[in-house]
């Protein structure tokens, strides 16, 4: 197991290294000069040049790349060009919104998907199953930003149950903050829940067809005992994969939703940073997100091993 962990960690860092190079190069060739953008339309060329050197943009590419990497390894993500504060500070603030939102949406999506998937699987082809599968088909097809618009129209503008967006900050109280994240979380969770419910169902159906479930039935277990006691844990592996993927997707994939609800989250930070050519923020956030993806995949793998003793053994 330790060997396995070591190998995974090695490939994790290689992925991060490769990703950092890709991100750096891509952001390097984006047309548009951060300094020119910051100084605006009537800026004096000398002032732009002064700003460029202040931001360190006049140094050679390789030097800047190494600087960035070495800095990151020491936990220093650099200074935002536009905000003029440490990137880590900016990111920290945004994660305080994005992470709870992600977890909220993920919790919603699992809480909906899990029972729905199990229910549908246990009533294969019965009306309940067909109804749930129909709804999830729709859920997968609805673009979440459109759904978000409809939510705002209904709950914020018409019914005024929720505010239309914005985030009051955690200082305003946990409940208030959670309330403001509710509509966005629902908008994010619906398509994810649909996907998850479908995966849950089909994985469970596959497992229910396995020989060992038949064995369990032959032992005298009822249909639902066999489902809960034997099929479920085996069916969980593909579901875990999807949950892992969704986590990382939601962490960054909320950009549009964050815009619709004007939440100060990570996604909006990068989006804005791209348009403002605050490249250092773009780079650092993307690397952070890549790290999150890789780390979550890693955790999911470990979760597999817990769910499935066969994997524990193989990797020892």
């Amino acid at each position, binding site marked *: 197991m330790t060997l396995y962990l070591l190998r995974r960690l090695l490939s994790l860092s290689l992925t991060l290294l490769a990703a950092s190079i890709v991100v750096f190069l891509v952001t390097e060739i984006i047309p548009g000069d951060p300094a020119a953008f910051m100084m605006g339309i009537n800026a004096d060329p000398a002032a732009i040049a002064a700003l460029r050197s202040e931001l360190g943009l006049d140094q050679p590419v390789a030097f800047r790349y190494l600087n960035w990497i070495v800095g990151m390894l020491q936990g220093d993500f650099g200074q935002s060009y536009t905000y003029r504060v440490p990137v880590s500070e900016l990111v920290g603030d945004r994660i305080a919104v994005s992470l709870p939102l992600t977890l909220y949406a993920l919790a919603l999506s699992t809480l909906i998907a899990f029972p729905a998937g199990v229910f549908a699987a246990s009533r294969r082809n019965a009306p309940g199953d067909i109804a749930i599968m129909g709804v999830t088909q729709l859920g997968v097809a609805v673009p979440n930003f459109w759904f978000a618009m409809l939510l705002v129209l209904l709950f914020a503008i018409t019914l005024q149950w929720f505010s239309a967006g914005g985030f009051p900050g955690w200082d305003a109280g946990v409940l208030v903050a959670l309330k403001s994240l509710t509509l966005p979380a629902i908008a994010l969770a619906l398509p994810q829940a649909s996907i998850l419910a479908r995966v849950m169902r089909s994985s469970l159906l596959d497992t229910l067809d396995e020989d060992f479930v038949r064995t369990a039935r032959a032992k005298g277990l009822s249909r639902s005992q066999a489902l809960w006691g034997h099929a479920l844990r*085996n069916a969980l592996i593909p579901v875990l994969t999807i949950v892992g993927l969704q986590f990382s997707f939601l962490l960054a994939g909320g950009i549009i939703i964050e815009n619709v609800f004007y939440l100060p989250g990570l996604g909006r930070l990068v989006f804005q940073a791209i348009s403002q050519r605050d490249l250092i923020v773009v780079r650092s956030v993307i690397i952070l997100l890549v790290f999150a993806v890789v780390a979550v995949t890693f955790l999911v793998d470990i979760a597999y091993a817990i*769910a499935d003793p066969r994997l524990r053994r193989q990797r020892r």
Partner: protein
Amino acid sequence: MSVLSVRNLDLKIGRIPILEDVDLTLDAGHILGIVGESGSGKSMTALAIMQLLPRAARWTGTIEVAGNDVGAMSERALCTMRGRDVSMIFQEPMTALNPVHTIGDQVAEVVRIHGEAGRRHAHARAIEVLGRVGLPPDRVAPDRYPHELSGGQRQRVAIAMAIALRPKLLIADEPTTALDVTTQAQILDLLRKLVREDGMGMMFITHDLAVVAGLADEVAVMKKGRVVETGPTRQLFRQMRHPYTRALFTASAHVPERQPRIETAATPVLEVRDVVRDYPRPRKNLFQAQAPFRAVDHVSLTVRAGENVGLVGESGCGKSTLARAILALEAVQAGEIHLNGKAFSSAGAGPDIRQRAAAQVVFQDPYGSFNPRHRVRRLVSEPFFLMPESPQDADRERRIGKALEDVGLTAGDADKYIHEFSGGQRQRIAIARALIIEPSLIVLDEAVSALDVSIRAQILDLLAGLSDRLGLSYLFISHDLTVVRAITDRVLVMQAGRIVEDGSTEDIFHNPRHPYTRSLLAATPSLAAALDEPSGETVET
């Protein structure tokens, strides 16, 4: 008292009739063998008794288990019955156990689910039952997971689950087909012992007449969803009133007629010298590689022109690996292989493509060895690729037609797709494909294992005839000693990657020298031997 009585059982899946008018009875302490070809409805009968039929299945008739009419029982009552009054062992030990629960838990669950004992007590019972089936806790701890056990051990766990509550009826659906002969013999002994000790009734399903002859008190022969003949084992096999029973019997004891013309003097067709095949194993840690797993360990052998050589050994001993090495489908780590006296491949050197045509192959799986998307014409002519100038047009057609006719099909079959053929026909096509470029050697890796007995007999005849007519040599790989005995001139016995014995077929079967060979032979069920035995073992109650 009868623990099972099935009367007038009709069963349909969708609109397709599966079982018709099946009648069976079984008394406590007795073993009822059910034999019949694949698809004859053996498993469906068992599942009907368990009431675990596929969703689309509908049945009529009466099924009584220990005096209860299962047709009249509620699902709840059925759950109570299953596992307590009647339990079942399935064919495939690899998948019949839940991979994420320990074996102890899985056995204890039966006890718990029927409210016979609390958690702790159930566990104690599980350990006890596992001990009974030969898995004492000091050797095989009950907190192991199924993947940590061998196939035979897993099947024992499945048996332990089935007998934990001493059911009145035990159904065993081909419980040993997935196991090698030695393990099979152990499992059969165990089952026999359990029936005798506990006085339960056992319904034993198999397609292997030899197994059933050595085990069952009574036998029912099934064909196409009907029971064509039943009776006490020995009586039934002696009399064999129904022609189908007779056909089955002759087919399983079938020995093709052969006139081998072995050319001892000429250069051997195949010469394998000191071949080693290693599979790398995952590294122990970052700095320390694990010694590779040696699947074939310094094997040397020769096959002469016109000679049929058998290669036997239990599952996993390296037979298929050796076959792949001979065919140069995998690189070898040491040794060399010569075809017709010329070097074909060796460690470090890839195969000499020009020689490939000399050795062809027929695999086990008649379904998996053809690309389903090609017509037979293309499938059969694939080896033409090996010829420097592959025949064209009329010549090509003629040779395809001839190859098909050689194996008893017609030239017209060339236009069909593979799914339009039965398993036996497919295996013929596989042979035609191997024959078409007139190789000197055909490697047959379990080429008849997947076939029903009667079809197997036909294919064996075909192979024997071809070898005689065309002077072909075979390397015939099988774990089924009966078959090997029927078709080969010489036998090699393989154990753990090594050839441990090599001798003429008659010699090996009558006078095995190596202990491993002896144990292999002893474990092989023999129909003739079973029927000759005095009836002392069967205890009537």
